[in-house]
């Protein structure tokens, strides 16, 4: 896939932010090669561990009897990563690992603890898996393990396969996050906290059916992960599509979409504030946002039509009439229908006569 494909970009951000990430994709779509190429491009040692052919003791440490007790010896790949001080731990074929091995992986993925050894903070954990319906003997990921990872869908399209065959596969680029990027995390945590205040039910919602258990689902841990990824995506200047893929990957698709929709809505002006001070109104650029803003203002006036609010509403529409006559005219029709007693006809009403007449909505 091309390096600016949202999934590839998202993978880079997750690795840069050291958030464990899992790529879901059909066999043979280049997940493994993309991750190896990424490690090589970064000059990092990459340890590939195929989870499905390992035993739990490979991740929990092999018990060894020493003089006065038992030590849980970490395997060689863990020791190599610890010695290097940084690197990529790549857990391949995660969904074909039997449940007992998945249980042993819980601490490895989140806390980077293998046996008695703790891997350095600079080690990034990346995993790849085939959807259970495509793997020969796939298991669904257990809900606790799924909750520790950011899930990204790895889909290839014909065009990028053609490009890759012709011109070689480009390695995903891991962005270099500027120093102090964590400061932005406070901001994004604040946003998440404000959202969960509005939708408390989404703070923790374990999946109810087996099919969705193996994907991202909202919990305090994944919301924290989402906040971290959002901050990292902002610091790295990634595209919006990659950012939304990261958020949905952490907390699941439904809650992620709701959060993104809430973020967009938060940008709209507050109708009551605008009515208190019509001159401060700035029309949003995009047509649908302008429509949402003006419709909200018209609805606010209609809900409590005093002469002062009604006149203020017309002033706002007057400001918008030049840039978006059609959008403002829709709101004007709402206002015209709720004229309070004693309100004088505003001058702005004449601005909309031509467009209303052209649309055949005004009798001459």
């Amino acid at each position, binding site marked *: 896939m091309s390096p600016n494909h949202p999934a590839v970009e998202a993978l880079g951000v997750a690795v840069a932010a050291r958030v464990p990430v899992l790529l879901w994709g059909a066999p043979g779509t280049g997940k493994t090669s993309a991750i190896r190429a990424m490690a090589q491009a970064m000059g990092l040692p990459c340890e590939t561990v195929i989870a499905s052919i390992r035993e739990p003791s490979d991740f929990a440490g092999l018990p060894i009897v020493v003089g006065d007790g038992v030590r849980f010896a970490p395997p060689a790949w863990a020791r190599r990563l610890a010695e290097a001080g940084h690197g990529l731990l790549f857990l391949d074929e995660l969904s074909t690992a039997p449940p007992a091995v998945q249980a042993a992986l819980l601490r490895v993925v989140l806390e980077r603890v293998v046996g008695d050894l703790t891997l350095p903070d600079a080690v990034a954990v990346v995993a790849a898996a085939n959807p259970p319906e495509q793997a020969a003997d796939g298991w669904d990921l257990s809900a606790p393990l799924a909750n520790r990872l950011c899930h990204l869908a790895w889909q290839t399209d014909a065009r990028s396969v053609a490009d890759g065959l012709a011109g070689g596969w480009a390695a995903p680029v891991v962005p270099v996050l500027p120093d102090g990027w964590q400061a932005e995390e406070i901001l994004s945590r604040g946003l998440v906290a404000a959202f969960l205040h509005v939708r408390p039910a989404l703070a923790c919602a374990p999946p109810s059916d087996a099919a969705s258990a193996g994907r991202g689902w909202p919990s305090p841990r994944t919301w924290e992960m989402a906040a971290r990824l959002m901050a990292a995506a902002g610091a790295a200047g990634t595209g919006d599509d990659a950012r939304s893929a990261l958020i949905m990957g952490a907390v699941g698709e439904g809650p992620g979409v709701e959060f993104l929709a809430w973020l967009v809505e938060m940008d709209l002006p507050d109708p009551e504030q605008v009515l208190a001070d019509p001159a401060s109104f700035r029309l949003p650029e995009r047509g649908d946002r302008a429509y949402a803003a003006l419709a909200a203002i018209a609805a606010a006036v209609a809900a409590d039509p005093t002469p002062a609010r009604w006149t203020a509403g017309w002033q706002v529409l007057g400001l918008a009439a030049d840039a978006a006559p059609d959008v403002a005219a829709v709101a004007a029709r709402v206002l015209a229908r709720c004229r309070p007693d004693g309100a004088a006809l505003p001058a702005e009403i004449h601005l909309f006569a031509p467009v209303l007449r052209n*649309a055949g909505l005004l009798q001459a």
Partner: protein
Amino acid sequence: MSDRGIEGLAAARLWAATRFPYLATGVFGAQVVADRGSGTVSVDESWRMRADPELTAAWTPAQLGSVLVHHVCHLLRTHGERAQAAGVRPDEARTWVRAADAEINDDLVPAGLDLPGRPVLPRDLRAEDGLLAEQYFDGIRRAQRAPAHGAKGGREAGDQDRSAQSEGETAGAWLDCGSGADGMPRPGQQPDGRGGALPRWQAELLRRQVAQDVMAHGKQPGTVPAGLLRWAEEFLSPKVNWRVLLAAELRRAVAEVAGAVDYSYRRPSRRSAVAGQVVLPALRRPVPEVAVVCDTSGSMTADLLAMVLAEVEGLLRTLGLARQVRVLACDTAVGPAQRVNSARQVQLTGGGGTDMGAGIRAAAALRPRPAVTVVLTDGYTPWPAAAPKGMRIVVGLLGAQAPDAPPWARAVRVEPD
């Protein structure tokens, strides 16, 4: 947002937003730019519309507004993406667009859409209203493949005929709707994220907003066309395919038994060499026995049962468990455990009453004892008060009206599709 070189755009959008208030967000969300000399109004998947001002100058605001609404519907119903999924070849793009047009127009034209020319309606494709573009497309394909070559002289010929004379006469042969309708990339099209294109996730949010508007308007009966309402319902709460759910539940039930990978001292561990005198246990993985209990009472539908049973057998085969499966037929009495080779061999005996409790008890009495039992029933049955010990139950509830399964079982609703 003003006219941008297209005369009457503002009036057209106002007409559209007033006539179809539930689509107003979509109509205003699309960016419209003038594209002189293109001879059409087209839309791409990033919500950008290009309109030829010379073409639209001849239209009334209602006609231009209708074209905008029509194109917004292409985007709402993701015809571009669906064309790719349906495997539409470039030379079939026009046929696909006719099918997609029919999907949109069948309920919007009666609702007051005033398209210039003669819009494609399902009856032009000799199909009934209310189908999906894929179904219309299949119908056209089949009609074209039909051996009667003489039929090509009919109305369908306009499909291949791009000559100017026939335009406006043949239904729908007048416009290239753009990549937003057929998924074929156009030369010179700017990539996503540039030139006012809507990023994918924002397009998704926009579609969601429109779907919510449609649902809100739909609360007053008769205001929103049924087809659009159905789209919004499907979009906001998509139906999950029962096959996926059934597969996941079965895998989970088997994984929790088979995957209870446990330590055993019957064999020494592969890792024993490092442990010196200590004997480490090895991992063992029991292979579970599976029983399928089929409700064979008269209220069951034979075809649906056969379909689900085939699905269950297929799933178990992929899990490597096909040899372990035994099938029991059950109404009030339990028939002998049948070894079936194909789902079709299960006979519906059609007794009056049903008691799945008897079936579950019979499954528990089998030797070797099944660890997982799949119960396929229409739900009109008494159930045991508690789950049987040491056995996982997955219930497939067949039919849309099936009552709920008991809380101790994992249930999947199977609706005929």
